[in-house]
């Protein structure tokens, strides 16, 4: 099981009914991954992925500090996320809340993100554990990734087994 197909692929697992765990290795030392994760100008360059562009990234990186990201999607919509930093250990660990801003959403729907940066042979293993207040919230977060439509391939076990490791 140690031989993963590619360490450059994010692996998503669902450890419990209310958690999502995302892991990925990066070919850079910890302090650089941490910098790219916490510096607004840098976050702007990757956070939207292929889905749009970042309109603004505000980060007040201290315990109790707030963050807010606004993305303009390719479809022209603005979506925003915000939260608060709960714990910060530079280059090691960040704990913050996250709320997807939409009508009816309140801070009681906030997920708790626990990001850890770990050395791995000159590379960095990043683990993002998302703790949600309920299974419904967790499922909604996963559904938000469903824009590409259903993939038709049936290569079930190998990939599912890997994604569940």
């Amino acid at each position: 099981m140690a031989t993963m197909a590619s360490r450059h692929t994010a692996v998503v697992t669902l450890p419990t009914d209310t958690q999502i765990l995302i892991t990925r290795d990066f070919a850079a030392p910890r302090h650089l991954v941490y910098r790219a994760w916490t510096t607004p100008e840098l976050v702007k360059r990757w956070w939207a992925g292929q889905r749009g562009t970042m309109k603004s990234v505000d980060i007040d990186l201290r315990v109790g500090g707030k963050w807010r990201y606004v993305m303009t999607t390719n479809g022209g919509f603005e979506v925003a996320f915000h939260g608060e930093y709960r714990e910060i250990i530079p280059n090691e660990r960040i704990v913050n809340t996250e709320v997807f801003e939409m009508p009816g959403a309140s801070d009681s729907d906030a997920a708790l993100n626990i990001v850890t940066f770990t050395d791995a042979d000159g590379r960095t293993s990043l683990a993002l554990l998302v703790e949600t207040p309920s299974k419904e919230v967790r499922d909604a977060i996963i559904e938000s990734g469903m824009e590409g439509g259903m993939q038709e391939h049936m290569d079930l076990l190998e990939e599912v087994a890997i994604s569940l490791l």
Partner: protein
Amino acid sequence: MARAATTTDAFNAVAEPRRRQILDVLAEGERPVNDLVEMLGLAQPQVSKHLRVLREVGLVDVREDGRKRLYRLNGLPLKPIHDWVKSYEESWNERFDGLDDVLDELNMEENGDGDDGE
């Protein structure tokens, strides 16, 4: 809603590490329970218990072959989970590909000109 329920059932069944091992073994072909007992190093009652759970959610089928019962994988119930999580994973992959580019640049800056680093 129906999908969430099915997903949860099959998902819960595969959340257990031993059951994933059983599925891994069965992915390579049909097996009688004794093979599983041997390969996993578990007691037969435990293996049977796991097989029962897997059968309940439809992940494992069984057929009689003479005096033996052969278990085999039925992957279909996993497809919804697979698809469901996969597209979420894909959105993170896109994001992280962009992060890779940023990191390449930071790596170069830090290593300085004329120094290729590793």
